[in-house]
């Protein structure tokens, strides 16, 4: 037909290059680079540990205490993770599927704990007295700070679920409860498992919160060993166990998940779901939400307010002395957060596109290898990066670039999860149509995928931004000597008795984290133009 000049621009004979398994080579190459960069500290740590000899690795567990501490780590993860799953799942179900009053408020409060810096929250818990210290506090703070991950993923999956499935189950004679367990829960399984995997991995390498709450774990032991001997190889030898644990958990999760991939949104009818009336259950459920909010958000915010009211005499003068650090610290933190977020997005984008559009073993392997950023305590990862930089890129050593890189690498898995939640909802037929209209892969991304995924990509960035704000371990090692952040200033001041001096820094951190939570609640996993609200 009309093969005239109008269509001539199509006919330049450019071929798509394809790699193994028919994967687009460019995307695959970018993903492999991203995965390798993220896994770099693990590689370096393994090398350092092996340099010390396998005997040294075995010996590092000789004493009774490291073994006990390893058990502590596993115990706290074993208790906190299911609790976080339960909290996240129930919050998601009540908010998305019932006529709970003030749902927007509860959504915000269910997201906020994630963006709140853990070192602020744990410090607040610690000041409440000895009840919240030790195992109870450690498990509690992890469960109540990380349940929002499960909440965000489960809420997204619930929103995307085809109401017809539930209606069919009801028509087959299942009541609400059985429908939940036989139809809804199985579909939430990937979201639930994926969220809980991040919680358990994060718990195993958590440091700040456990130190504040005086709970000794394996990671705390690694830090102590490092400070004691100042030898990277000792810390590296111990870290081998956390690497092994991480890899085992990754395998376990993939076995548990089985063939089921993350919930694919049905593109059929997008009818609004019918929400259940809570009836007499309204008050108990509301009481549950209030309790959850008090524990996770109320305690840190309340403590902060208390610090301000207590800022009398000695404290006030301390605060006044510090207040001129507030501006520069805020600027540094925000800039670090933005740069870290952008870099993490750049790493996460090819991998999430690969997973969503070319699912298969290769894609899953690359995606899961980013989870190796959970395998090391922040301190060890930062040290290994500093080591690499000092040996191979001296220009980067003690530079902001290295810090930004380290922060980005740390939070790539979160960025991947957030992006995937969005990209998975974009119908492949939309991209196919764009290709059929003569757009190459890059222009298709720029004109179709990116505009549609914009809210979700923004959410992914904001999530990483909040995590960078809440990071202390990496900053303490890699922050150039002349710089300070909100986190390091909070840390420096909170170690003195005058809480008031730390309060302004905590206040800015909490304010920024609430703003981040507000963005997350409206944009996480969302696609433009597909659904309202």
């Amino acid at each position, binding site marked *: *037909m009309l093969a005239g000049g109008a*269509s001539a621009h199509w006919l330049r004979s*450019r071929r*798509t290059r394809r790699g193994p398994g028919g994967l687009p080579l460019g995307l695959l190459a970018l993903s492999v680079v991203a995965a390798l960069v993220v896994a770099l500290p693990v590689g370096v740590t393994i090398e350092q540990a092996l340099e010390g000899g396998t005997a040294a690795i075995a010996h590092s567990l000789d004493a009774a205490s490291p073994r006990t501490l390893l058990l502590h780590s596993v115990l706290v993860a074993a208790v906190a993770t299911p609790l976080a799953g339960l909290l996240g799942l129930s919050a998601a179900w009540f908010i998305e599927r019932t006529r709970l009053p003030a749902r927007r408020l509860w959504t915000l409060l269910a997201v906020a704990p994630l963006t709140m810096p853990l070192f602020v929250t744990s410090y607040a818990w610690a000041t409440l007295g000895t009840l919240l210290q030790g195992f109870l506090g450690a498990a509690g703070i992890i469960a109540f700070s990380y349940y929002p991950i499960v909440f965000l993923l489960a809420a997204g999956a619930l929103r995307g679920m085809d109401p017809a499935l539930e209606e069919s189950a009801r028509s087959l004679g299942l009541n609400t409860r059985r429908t939940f367990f036989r139809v809804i829960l199985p579909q939430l399984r990937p979201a639930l498992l994926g969220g809980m995997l991040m919680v358990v991995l994060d718990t195993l390498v958590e440091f700040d919160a456990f130190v504040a709450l005086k709970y000794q774990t394996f990671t705390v032991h690694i830090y102590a060993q490092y400070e004691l001997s100042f030898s990277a190889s000792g810390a590296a030898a111990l870290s081998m166990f956390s690497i092994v644990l991480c890899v085992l958990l990754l395998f376990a999760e993939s076995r548990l998940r089985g063939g089921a991939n993350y919930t694919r949104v049905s593109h059929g009818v997008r009818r609004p779901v019918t929400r259940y009336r809570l009836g007499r259950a309204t008050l108990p459920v509301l009481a549950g939400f209030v309790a959850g909010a008090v524990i996770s958000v109320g305690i840190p915010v309340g403590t902060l307010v208390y610090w301000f009211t207590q800022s009398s005499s000695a404290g006030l003068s301390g605060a006044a002395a510090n207040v001129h650090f507030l501006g520069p610290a805020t600027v540094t933190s925000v800039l670090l957060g933005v740069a870290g977020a952008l870099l993490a997005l750049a790493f996460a984008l090819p991998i999430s596109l690969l997973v969503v559009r070319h699912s298969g073993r290769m894609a899953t392997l690359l995606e899961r290898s980013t989870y190796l950023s959970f395998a090391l305590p922040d301190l060890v990862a930062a040290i290994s990066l500093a080591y690499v930089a000092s040996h191979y890129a001296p220009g980067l050593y003690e530079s902001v670039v290295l810090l930004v890189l380290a922060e980005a690498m740390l939070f790539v898995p979160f960025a991947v999860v957030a992006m995937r939640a969005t990209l998975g909802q974009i119908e492949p*037929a*939309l991209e*196919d149509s764009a290709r059929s209209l*003569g757009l190459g892969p890059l222009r*298709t991304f720029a004109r179709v995928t990116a505009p549609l995924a914009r809210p979700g990509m923004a959410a992914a960035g904001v999530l990483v931004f909040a995590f960078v704000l809440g990071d202390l371990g990496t900053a303490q090692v890699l922050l150039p000597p002349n710089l300070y952040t909100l986190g390091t200033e909070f840390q420096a001041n909170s170690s003195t008795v005058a809480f008031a001096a730390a309060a302004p820094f905590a206040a800015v951190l909490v304010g920024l984290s609430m703003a981040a939570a507000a963005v997350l609640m409206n944009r996480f996993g969302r696609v433009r133009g597909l659904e309202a609200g």
Partner: protein
Amino acid sequence: MAELVCEGVAKSYRGREVLGDVDLDVPTGTLTAILGASGSGKTTLLRVIMGFVEADAGRVTVGGETVAEAGRVHLAADKRAIGYVAQEGALFPHLSAGENVGFGLGRSERRQGARIVQALELVGLDASYAPRPSHELSGGEQRRVALARALAPRPRIVLLDEPFSGLDAGLRAETREAVLHALGEEQATAVLVTHDQAEALSMGHEVAVLRGGRLAQRAAPSELYRTPVDTDVARFVGEANIAAGEASGGRVRCALGRLKIVNGGVEGPVEVLIRPEQIELSASADAGGDGAHGREDGSGHDHAVRARVTEHVYYGADTVLRLTLEDRSHTVVKARVSGQEAPAPGEAVQLVVRGPVVVFPAQMSRTEST
């Protein structure tokens, strides 16, 4: 000349053959319907032509240019100049109807807007639709805009993937007409993929039946309907009575009488295809004797057969009757008669088969008569 040619296209997934040795050519300016049940490989074939899937073997040429040759050439989908209308339209939800239509145009043409309006008019929508958000369009309008979007950049071929699925009967017919009109105006070469035989027969200049990943038959609609290659294709493209018979000398003897054969040269045991509308009824003259009795008529179809109406399904314009022959075989046949004159269940009738019939040698047919 054939605008689109597929030669020996094959594709397997994990050792399971989805397409095997498919040859297809689509003459310039015509519409070929690919008809197949779900799982027949029709969507895979379409995606191979589009360039979304790489075939394991075979070659695809468009306008004489090889766009795909297994292991050697794979032109990216965006370089093939093949328009594509996805199931349910796949309009970009972040763009208005007009922006969707202009999506594949160059920047200047997009800004100028004339081609957008022209493409909208082509599918029977006026310029006032352009600013409307795509989610505010009805199902039928979405399909039209999707076609306008595919046609706007003047592609060499347009592929339509079940473009009317999910539309109700009235809207389906209306949208179908609009699509045929638009394709005709643009003199477009088109391939329509469908599982709906009525859609394939009414829209295609040619219909290709795909079965188990292989091309079972390709023919003009009337030829396909009248002379299918086997009983499966016969049943797939329309309702069919299949009766056992014995062929000799250009005629076949079966429960419905001694009938003239279209495809001569077949001898021995056969299966006979008789379309329900080939059966004509008259009220039974209550004569004695069982089964067939002779009555030569000019058509060469010689027997009136006695039967009783056992079921009666009214469709408005016509009625489908289920009849049991009053002979020893008690064969059940379906007849399609005018809606007004249909006899009631229980009534005795006489049947005559009009027009010659197709026979298939008995061993090549797969299933028993219906």
